[in-house]
């Protein structure tokens, strides 16, 4: 703007001269020079302003083509200007404490602090269409002792081609689409440990899956072919047999677009697997992660394995309830016999946000984050559940011993979750488990478990 004054002031100074009629006075030599000078100054001012204009345009263009970096509650993200390429660095750490009051006189050594999950996550998108995810876990087996026993594991390693919302292809290692609670992130559970049905559902496996959302996500489907894993197990390769598992799931939200708040949060479905296994069998544990059933040495799966799981949830305002039932039927074999065993498990878990956040299967955000000395309290959630795992009675005594295994475990528990913000969550649970069919002191007395967790995720 100062340039304008440089032009205007000299112009005003000579104005009386310039306003004389041409006939009265033609511009003299000095006036001519002055006019020329004004023209030059005006040009300079225009050039200056245009350069500034171009600088602003260049800066705006640079912003459009610049890679953006963001850091927030969902981790660290780098995006290309056209958003076709994204890489996010995320992760979560869970530090747990497990205490089992009442079993001191049994000699059990199970009270411990532990790093339950230590999971860095790298995920993103390339060429807009391909999503990828790599999640490692350095918290596996830490309960067994020092970090020397730690075995870093690949939990997720897959790529998803998002061809259409209705049809996508996912390849790599990821969760088989079976258990409802299993499909919920480990950072987003109602209770510190998952319930009994997850023990019978497969965990992560390597394979290829097609998936999609139909009718505006009112129905979703997944169907895939995998190596096949034992109940609750994960795998990176199949070296035991050449057979593969087929896993599929259909899940509906029929009232997703309804005007009724009371109906929108209803979801239900069914999933299952079928395949042939010749692998080692797994043990079953309580919500306190203590073993209550194991097959006798030399017992392995030997033939067809089928699972079916009806499942559903319902969320309405701060209230939520989740239920699932799993039937796992497989042939097992040892030196003495071959037999088909059918185990079942179910659970019903409910929660309520005292701070009135909208409950959801997905992560929730507190209405007001907790601030020390401030008005925000975060989100406070009360939880309760009941569940059971029923082992086929035909397992005894050929494939399992009552001295170390129970034929049924029933548990109930209550808990509280305090979401200080989207990144920090504190949890405290009490679970009581009683057993049928076992003869050891632990199985007769049952289990009282107090579990707590401090979770940091980003």
């Amino acid at each position, binding site marked *: 703007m100062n340039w304008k004054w440089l032009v205007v002031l000299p112009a005003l100074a000579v104005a009386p001269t310039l306003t004389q009629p041409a006939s009265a006075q033609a511009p003299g030599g000095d006036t001519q020079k002055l006019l020329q000078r004004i023209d030059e100054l005006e*040009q300079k001012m225009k050039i200056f302003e*245009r350069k500034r204009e*171009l600088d602003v345009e260049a800066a705006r263009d640079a912003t459009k083509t610049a890679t953006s970096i963001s850091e927030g509650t969902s981790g660290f993200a780098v995006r290309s200007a*056209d958003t076709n390429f994204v890489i996010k660095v995320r992760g979560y750490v869970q530090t747990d404490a497990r205490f089992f009051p009442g079993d001191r006189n049994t000699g059990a050594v199970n009270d411990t602090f532990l790093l339950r999950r230590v999971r860095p996550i790298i995920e993103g998108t390339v060429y807009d269409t391909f999503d990828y995810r790599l999640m490692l876990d350095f918290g596996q087996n830490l309960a067994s002792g020092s970090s020397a026993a730690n075995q870093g594991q690949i939990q997720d390693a897959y790529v998803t081609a998002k061809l259409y919302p209705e049809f996508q292809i996912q390849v790599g290692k990821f969760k088989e689409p079976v258990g409802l609670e299993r499909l919920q992130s480990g950072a987003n559970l109602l209770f510190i440990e998952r319930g009994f049905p997850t023990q019978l559902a497969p965990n992560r496996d390597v394979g290829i899956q097609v998936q999609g959302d139909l009718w505006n996500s009112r129905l979703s489907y997944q169907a895939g072919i995998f190596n096949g894993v034992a109940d609750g197990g994960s795998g990176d390769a199949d070296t035991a047999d050449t057979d593969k598992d087929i896993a599929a799931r259909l899940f509906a939200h029929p009232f997703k677009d309804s005007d009724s708040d009371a109906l929108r949060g209803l979801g239900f479905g069914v999933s299952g697997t079928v395949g042939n296994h010749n692998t080692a069998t797994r043990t079953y544990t309580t919500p306190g992660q203590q073993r209550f059933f194991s097959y006798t040495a030399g017992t392995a799966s030997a033939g067809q394995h089928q699972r079916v799981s009806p499942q559903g949830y319902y969320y309405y305002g701060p209230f939520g309830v989740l239920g699932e039932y799993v039937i796992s039927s497989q042939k097992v074999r040892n030196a003495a016999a071959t037999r088909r065993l059918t185990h079942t498990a179910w659970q019903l878990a409910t929660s309520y946000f005292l701070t009135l956040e909208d409950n959801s299967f997905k992560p929730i955000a507190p209405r007001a984050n907790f601030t020390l000395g401030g008005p925000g309290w975060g989100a406070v959630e009360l939880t309760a559940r009941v569940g059971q795992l029923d082992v086929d009675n035909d397992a005894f005594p050929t494939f399992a011993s009552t001295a170390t295994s129970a034929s049924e475990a029933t548990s109930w528990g209550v808990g509280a979750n305090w979401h200080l913000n989207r990144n920090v969550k504190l949890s405290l649970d009490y679970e009581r488990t009683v057993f049928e069919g076992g003869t050891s002191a632990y199985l007769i007395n049952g289990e009282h478990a107090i579990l707590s967790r401090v979770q940091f995720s980003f």
Partner: protein
Amino acid sequence: MKFRHLLQSALTLLLAASTATAKDIKLLNVSYDPTRELYQEFNTAFAKHWQAKTGDKVTVQQSHGGSGKQARSVIDGLEADVVTLALAYDVDAIAQKGRLLPADWQKRLPQNSAPYTSTIVFLVRKGNPKGIKDWSDLVKPGIGIIPANPKTSGAARWAYLAAWGYALKQNNGDEARAKEFVAKFYKNVPVFDTGARGATTTFIQRGIGDVLVGWENEAFLALKEQAKGGYQLVVPSVSILAEPPVAVVDKVVKRRGTAAVAKGYLDYLYSDEGQEIAARNYYRPRSATVAAKFADKFPKLQLFTIDELFGGWQKATKTHFADGGTFDQIQRK
């Protein structure tokens, strides 16, 4: 078997229905700065032509910007079905760096895939107060020249080479004298725009400089739109024959299933109607018939080609516009 029969019947019906139904097709033409008006008119004519020929409805979207920047966008993923750029070099870059079309793309259409031509002329203020008649007048002290930046603009590269070519011809091919001349030329440039349309804005809307050096079609358009604005065209004694090329982006049209319509679009530029639209928008038509019809519209001047004086775009770019090339050397002085 009954189910299979039903399925086959359904598929046959579906196929028949799909082939009998007219399609809505979208094309993206990624072009350079001053072709907005040309392609607005051409797209309407082509859509009409294509619908009459095939029954399909075509909507052509346009994207405009500095030619080099546009090529970069296509390489980076902008899904252009066709490119209509200012320089063959920019299409070469799409072929070489993006691998989106074959290296010999220029041979696929007549006249080196340039359906129309243009040249570089001057636009001066009314009455031509600085008495500019030819290139030699531009390097006099006190002349404000407005070209775009050769680093980013196709028009500016043509202008740079036109000035260089003039100096070569005046000095019996002496490159050093030509460099000296062009250095003086750019010394008189007060502000650089990134594209040809921006340079026009600088000269006309912002009132900066004494002479706009740029596309002939852009100068004519400015005269038409600023009829009372007080500008006049100055045609230099010699200039360069600019051949803006067009090409189908093979990989994109294959992926999008638009190969036939994209080819039809470019072919139509060579039709009588396409050539007339080009001429009406001040691009010199290739067709002799149409050129004769619009002969009085385009001034006659001596034109040289880039191949004659500079050995083609690859060589010219390496010598003059690459980092550390003569343009950078001139700018550093």
